[in-house]
């Protein structure tokens, strides 16, 4: 019997990019394998051990059958870590929540195929089970992953920064993108990624979720100053945070703005759907 803590990785609705980032973290920190025993990691190994203490969960809950799987993981694990924006926030998956589910099913799979796949509005895993720690981001930052694992192995509780991304951006001495005419959600977004996107010249899109004191009204003013319509502003706010915006406002953002696509009775041969004989 090994005394090393056993950890396991699980994926729900996601691109699996966060687990790939974990594999990448091993490139520089192969020694991690001396500290923990990975008992389940479907993307990288065949073994499927059921005995684990820490569960890392990537992906959102997007169907009824996900709930039982999540509850079983919660039952077994002493600690559950949400890995990345899909698990933490609902992430990009929740963009579909602005339509009734039949609408998106019909658009992609057509009238004949719309019922072939089970799906419902995307939610963060914390909507289903208790989550002990979060590694935000789309994808996660590998250094933050290593830091959180280290803290958990030491029995400490990882904490997220509770200040805006702008703090880290200033520390990197970046020029403020919003003043250069480039849209950036840094003022409302939780720090912790060292402002990686603004450092590569592209505005923050909010993948780490909002910081606790986020001032949305002022952020809207900044974006209006860039010439954005309210619809375009909502599109920016909801790329990763549709679920949060809906929880905050009590209704689905963007739902009235684009009238034609809220229609659930799409023609049978829509743009993305397969041909039907």
């Amino acid at each position, binding site marked *: 019997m090994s005394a090393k803590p056993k950890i396991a990785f699980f994926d729900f*609705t*996601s*691109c*699996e*990019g966060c*687990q*790939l*980032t974990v594999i*990448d973290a091993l*490139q*520089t920190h*192969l020694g991690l*394998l001396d500290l923990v025993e*990975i008992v389940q*990691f*479907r*993307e*990288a*190994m*065949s*073994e499927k051990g059921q005995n684990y203490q820490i569960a890392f969960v990537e992906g959102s809950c997007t169907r009824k059958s*996900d709930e039982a799987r999540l509850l079983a993981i919660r039952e077994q694990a002493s600690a559950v870590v949400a890995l990345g924006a899909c698990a933490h926030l609902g*992430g*990009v*998956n929740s*963009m*579909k929540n602005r*339509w009734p589910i039949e*609408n*998106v*099913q019909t*658009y*992609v799979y*057509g009238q004949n*195929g719309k019922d*072939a*796949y*089970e*799906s419902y509005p995307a939610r963060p895993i914390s909507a289903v089970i208790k989550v002990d720690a979060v590694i935000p981001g789309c*994808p996660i930052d590998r250094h933050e992953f290593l830091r959180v694992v280290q803290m958990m192995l030491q029995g400490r509780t990882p904490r997220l920064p509770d200040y805006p991304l702008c703090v880290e951006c200033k520390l990197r001495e970046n020029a403020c993108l919003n003043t250069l005419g480039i849209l950036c959600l840094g003022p409302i977004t939780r720090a912790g990624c060292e402002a*990686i*996107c603004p450092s*590569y*010249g*592209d505005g923050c*899109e909010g993948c780490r979720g909002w910081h606790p004191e986020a001032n949305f009204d002022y952020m809207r003013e900044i974006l209006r100053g860039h010439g954005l319509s309210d*619809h*375009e502003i909502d*599109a*920016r706010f909801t*790329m990763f945070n549709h679920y949060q915006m809906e929880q905050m406002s009590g209704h689905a953002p*963007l739902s009235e703005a*684009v009238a034609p696509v809220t229609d659930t009775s799409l023609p049978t041969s*829509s*743009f*993305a759907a*397969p*041909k*039907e*004989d």
Partner: protein
Amino acid sequence: MPENIKVNVHHVTRVEGHGNIVVDVRDGTLEKCELQIVETPRFFEAMLRGRPYQQASHITSRICGICAVGHATASLRATERALQVQLSEQTKLLRRLAFHGEILDSHILHVYMLVAPDFLGVGSVIPLATSHPDIVKRALRMKKFSGDLCQTIVGRHTHPIAMTVGGFTHFATVQELVELRERAEALIADVDATVELFGTLPWPAFERETEFIALVQPDDYGLIDGKIGSSDGYELELDDYRQVTNERLAPHSTAKHAAFNRDSYMVGALARYNLKHQHLSPRAKAAAAHLGLSAPCYRPYLNSAAQVVEIVHCIDDVIQVLDTLIERGIEREDPAPVTLSPHARGVGACDVPRGILFHEYQIGEDGLIEEANCVIPTGQNLANIDRDMRALVPSILTEPEEQITLKLEMLVRAYDPCISCSTHFLNVEFTGK
């Protein structure tokens, strides 16, 4: 021959995404043989509707963690062709570097960490760290280079930051390119060792003739833009991609088939090798010969060998592109301008690690996306995987069940399926029951 065999591999491991293999032999007859896709649907095409075109490449890169640069590139090309954007030479060269970074990263991950364990008799790469440390360290060195290449050009591999409609938001310095050039040169020993290693593996001999589809260009092994080439002798414009992919719901079945001239076709490294091997670098050609590849090759297990050949080619091409850029110098260009018009349509295509990928958008005069369609390589390969399995199973029925299972898993894995990409295909039921 045993009378009854049941193989049921729930969630095939060491592939990206969730799939099940089901084989059912009753009274000596193959009743069922299928790769079931059980990945949750994601609805990216539906989600793009009503979004500003500037968001499309960052949203669609999230389709797949492994092919993030590929999806971003196809997405940008679709938007740029819809909005009549002319790219600078520098933009094309920089995109090519990021693209190669991803091909290298994905192929190295696949051949070393997902395929090699089968041949070395272990369940994952993890025990290899102890039993074959040199191999694992070499793979990690090569992966580190490809990741750093992406990072230098676009910020990171998953998900690229600095690629935008019409150009880039960040520019590597010439000094950074010079350093990458040195590291690429130093990596050639590892690349040669990779060819040596995979030259020793006993690839299963199974073969089945099929149609191969890849992007083709007149005198280049180009992976971005071009025409759609078929090994059956056809060449189509990108705008006509729907004639090739022909996604269709078959009657009395929920299966969605991609089929062009036959009932299935194959995309990916082996398809590219078969269609454009003459444009490989000289060292890549030598590697192909060493690995036992010669066109046309109908052995699907050798898709992994073709990936090794592309690792060689991409490193050579990276060095060449870096030389060009170092010679030209790097200019901090503004993104090329867009022209908005009503209901503008554009198709973007690139040959990502797993094969040809199409994005098509319709964008309104207000800059909002009206329609979107993405056709993913793995979706195109599914019908071909099924036909391979049905051809293979009768010839191995006398073997023990775990051997049959392993060979089927290895076959599925050889295609390097990327199932979470597949926002766009249905539950796969290949049997005609």
